[in-house]
């Protein structure tokens, strides 16, 4: 009888030693009140918020810091207008182009391809189809239009305004212009703006 009890104890002990680890549940903590924040944490769940969600939409009629209003409509007319008259408030510099290229690789290249030929990995794997090349003859791709499409999206492409800010979208747009030029075998946007600036400075003194 005694041995039976001993065996029982041994089984219970060994079972409790191996069975405690459960990867579906967080581990317990030593004095949790040192770990858990007193304030409301990002993405936390608290009764005070609607739907218990700390993450909420911005209050209506407010803008985030550094926000620049964009006055063109999300419509075909808006796109045409942006193509015709919208100019980048940022200068085309090597630094901006480098940042744009980096961001392009993150956000655009999966579909549009590293070269802008519309053959990104999602296209070659047939997840997305029919992505046009930037050099496509039927399309009028200009800086303002790119910015407009990045902001609002177009057809099957969604808006990227939540992932990038205004300046970043302009930087990406510059890089897209560069890609378009290199696909067509034309000089890049940096050279063309420099050339324009030169001709402007030549004509100005007169």
């Amino acid at each position: 009888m005694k041995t039976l009890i001993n065996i029982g104890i041994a089984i219970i002990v060994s079972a409790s030693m191996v069975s405690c680890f459960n990867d579906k549940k967080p581990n317990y903590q030593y004095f949790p009140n040192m770990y858990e924040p007193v304030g409301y944490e990002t993405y936390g769940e608290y009764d005070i918020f609607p739907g218990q969600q700390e993450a909420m939409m911005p209050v209506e009629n407010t803008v985030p810091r550094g926000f620049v209003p964009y006055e063109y409509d999300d419509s075909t007319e808006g796109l045409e207008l942006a193509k015709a008259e919208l100019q980048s408030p940022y200068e085309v510099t090597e630094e901006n182009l480098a940042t744009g290229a980096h961001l392009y690789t993150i956000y655009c290249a999966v579909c549009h391809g590293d070269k802008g030929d519309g053959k990104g990995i999602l296209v070659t794997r047939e997840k997305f189809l029919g992505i046009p090349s930037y050099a496509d003859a039927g399309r009028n791709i200009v800086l303002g239009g790119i910015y407009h499409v990045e902001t609002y999206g177009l057809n099957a492409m969604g808006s990227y305004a939540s992932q990038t800010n205004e300046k970043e979208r302009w930087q990406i747009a510059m890089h897209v212009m560069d890609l378009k030029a290199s696909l067509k075998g034309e000089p890049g946007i940096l050279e063309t703006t420099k050339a324009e600036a030169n001709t402007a400075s030549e004509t100005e003194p007169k």
Partner: protein
Amino acid sequence: MLVFLLTFSTTIYSQDEAAAASQEAPADAAGGDVAAGESLFKANCAACHKLDKKAVGPALRNVADLFDKDWLHKWIKNSQGLIASGDAQANKIFEENNKMIMPPFPGLSDEDIDNILAYTSKPKAEPKAPVADAAAAGGASTGGGGVSNGLVLGALALIFLLLVIMLYLVTNTLKRIAEANGVVYEKEEKEKRLPIWKAFVQNQFLVMVFSIVLILVGSYFAYGYMMQVGVDQGYAPVQPIHYSHKIHAGDNQIDCNFCHSSARKSKTSGIPSLNVCMNCHKNISEVAEDTATEEYSKEFYDGEIAKLYKAVGWDAENQEYTGKTEPVKWVRIHNLPDFAYFNHSQHVTVAGVACQTCHGEVEKMEVMEQFAPLTMGWCISCHKETNVNLANNEYYAKIHEELSKKYGVEKLTIAELGGIECGKCHY
């Protein structure tokens, strides 16, 4: 060369396909190469049109039966021109589709358009029902690999238990038989011998050695036990929507920053809001056949995408938002205690640390789990070992130079820049 190979292989494929199609549908007399049409369709039309589902534009299966062929040619080449010319049918369709402009395709020849129309007129491929069903059933039954494992172990344990009971019963029976036969157990020796524990207690040296060993082993286990309190390494909770990092970041090579866009410039890496999912999943309402694995079937994944649609309030049928949303309660995995400060942008953008350094090979994780222990010792050891990239940082050039001189090293670690001062993370 590669392009040539590709076209070559598609033409081979296309011939089979075309032959099959012509057998299936001899009525498809419009004439036109189905396979050439398919590649043209995928290159030009598929961005907005699907064959059997409404996407940005209407579904196009059998569109050639609905409209006059010449009219379709005009429409595809320049739909806006046709609308402007006052064509009643064109205007009607334009109105019906919320005045969505279809770009002109002047580059497509008449033959190309015929090919595309031949492709859209191709009868819908019947799903290989029995095979697919069997595969689905197989996928479902193997869906819970963990459960079947547990079952096997349980059965083994049960068998083991039965064996023990049987052994016990057998000895009892044998004993009884022996007693019946007159064999008497004698416990004669027992009286004379000293019980072993008494002998042990009397041997003081043995007691001392034993207690020292006991203390050492005990404290070793106690230490290990206490050090894992509050450490969540390997924590892999069940999420409300089964999101596979393996499919997104691994197979499809989507950059981590694509969805976790705030890691570049904010303290938290950001749980992507559902609009980011919808940027792609507006178009992708079901996974491809080859995405399904043995553990997770295609039906399972499609169901998870349906959960996303439900949460974000997307009516896939009519391609519009219903406005009825419900929050997704993602379970947070990586969580630092309140008394430690950590900033993602500082590590991602400033230091250029790869996400995988701390989060492991997320691109291979079907179920996300915590890779690093996230303990203070883990932070410190990285800060002591990692060199800081000092290039292109003229503003601090002088201080970096002086620090290098002070420590007598060429490359500075983060610790040498003050990265292990208490106040850097605890305040």
